[in-house]
């Protein structure tokens, strides 16, 4: 069952065409990774999927409902998509648990006690210890902040999680704790679309890897298929990222 479908998505900023007809399907329970060099359009594409960026052309369906339709209830459909940003966008005036609760109380209309219970469960799920629940974002490390951001998105019970380079703003030491959480969620069947530069992680977690360059998808397949990619452009990019020759991953 396809839970997220994008068809021929185009986006232009002034004279620069950022997306050139990108299409993608995501099945329930699937983990798909988008890779590509900087400026490939990965983040823009991800933001188009929940209309944080409005595409110029193309159609997008979430759980069978078209979010790009003029009649679409965008705020309701966005609740079906969990979005984790690279910039650690926690709400500065709320504690860790407050960040997770606010969507539940103010968007989903849950009672405070139910929201608190759910927030606690979700924070535990992303391994945020109890002593951190009442801390403000400025009092948390980068890795902890990003895990709270994952919890905030996850608590809304989305049908798909989108991760936009979730570790790019973190020190390498802090990246692993975030990647571990994403991997655990993915293994538990949470449908995920992940933009990342962490190649080892991508090969480990992905059912399918999509490679983007200059606003279009230039190739993709299972990690195994990608290891043996025949497309020159894809091979060259993989070689560049790996620092390896002939696209061979160790």
């Amino acid at each position, binding site marked *: 069952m396809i839970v997220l479908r994008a068809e021929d998505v185009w986006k232009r900023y002034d004279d620069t065409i950022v997306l050139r007809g990108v299409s993608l399907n995501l099945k329930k329970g699937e983990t798909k990774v988008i890779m590509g060099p900087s400026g490939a359009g990965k983040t823009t594409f991800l933001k188009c999927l*929940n209309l*944080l960026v409005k595409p110029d052309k193309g159609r997008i369906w979430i759980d069978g409902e078209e979010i790009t339709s003029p009649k679409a209830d965008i*705020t*309701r459909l*966005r*609740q079906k*998509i969990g*979005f984790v*940003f690279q*910039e650690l*966008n*926690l*709400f*500065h*005036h709320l504690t860790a648990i407050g960040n997770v609760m*606010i*969507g539940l109380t*103010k*968007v989903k209309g849950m009672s405070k006690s139910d929201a608190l219970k759910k927030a606690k469960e979700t924070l535990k799920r992303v391994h945020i210890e109890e002593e951190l629940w009442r801390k*403000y*974002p*400025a*009092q948390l490390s980068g890795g902890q902040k990003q895990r709270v*951001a994952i919890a*905030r*998105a996850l608590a*809304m019970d989305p049908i798909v999680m989108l991760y936009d380079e979730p570790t790019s703003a973190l020190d390498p030491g802090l990246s692993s704790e975030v990647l571990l959480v994403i991997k655990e969620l993915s293994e538990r069947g949470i449908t995920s679309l992940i933009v990342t530069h962490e190649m080892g992680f991508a090969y480990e977690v992905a059912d399918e890897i999509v490679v983007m360059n200059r606003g279009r998808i230039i190739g993709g397949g299972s990690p195994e298929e990608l290891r043996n990619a025949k497309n020159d452009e894809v091979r060259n990019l993989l070689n560049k990222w790996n620092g390896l020759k002939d696209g061979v991953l160790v």
Partner: protein
Amino acid sequence: MGIRMTYIYSLFQYIPFIAEGVLWTASLVLGGLGIGFIIGLPLAIAQSFGGKKLGKVLNAYVWFFRGTPLLVLLSLFYWAIFPSFGFKLDPLKTSILVLGMRSGAYQSQIFKDSIKSVDYGQILAAKAIGMTQRKLILYIVLPQALRISIPAWSNEYAVILKDSAICFALGVMEILTRVRYVSTATGLALIPYLFAGILFFVLTFSGTGIMDFIHKRTRIPGMVEGLR
């Protein structure tokens, strides 16, 4: 010398009269700040989220009140605008309204800057969890923007307090008007005007002290520092 001392002693009988002026000044300041807040906050929200066209229209209001001297505004509204609309307001009410409308223009700029300093990433994050624009303004932007604006708002209190003295031009019985009356009646200038200065200083100092206290009590670790 004896006559002089008699005048000075006679000043004591005017203390309750001048002290009553503090209440009038407080009415001008609190009324002006309150009306300014009611005008300024929605104005700032509309300027920040209402699009360019609306922003330009609202800018006209802001620039009119920021660009016109208070004395001109007081005279204009008291002698011309309010009467032409059929309102016969007394000097105190007119002064409170004018101070409020003018403060609204200044406060809108304070709140607009504070709203701007809430980083856009948080607004995107609020949208991403399904918040409507109204909810994200109410629950994400304003709780932060209002905290950030406290120091500037405290400054606006001090400004409006000092500006309130200009309302003597309409005959409002605030501190300065009463001190001028006492000065004329006693023939003394130094002590009455010094007393007025001390009263304004105490009101400024205590008011900004209260605002500092509120600022400290509502401070969130790392928030303001992180946004600047």
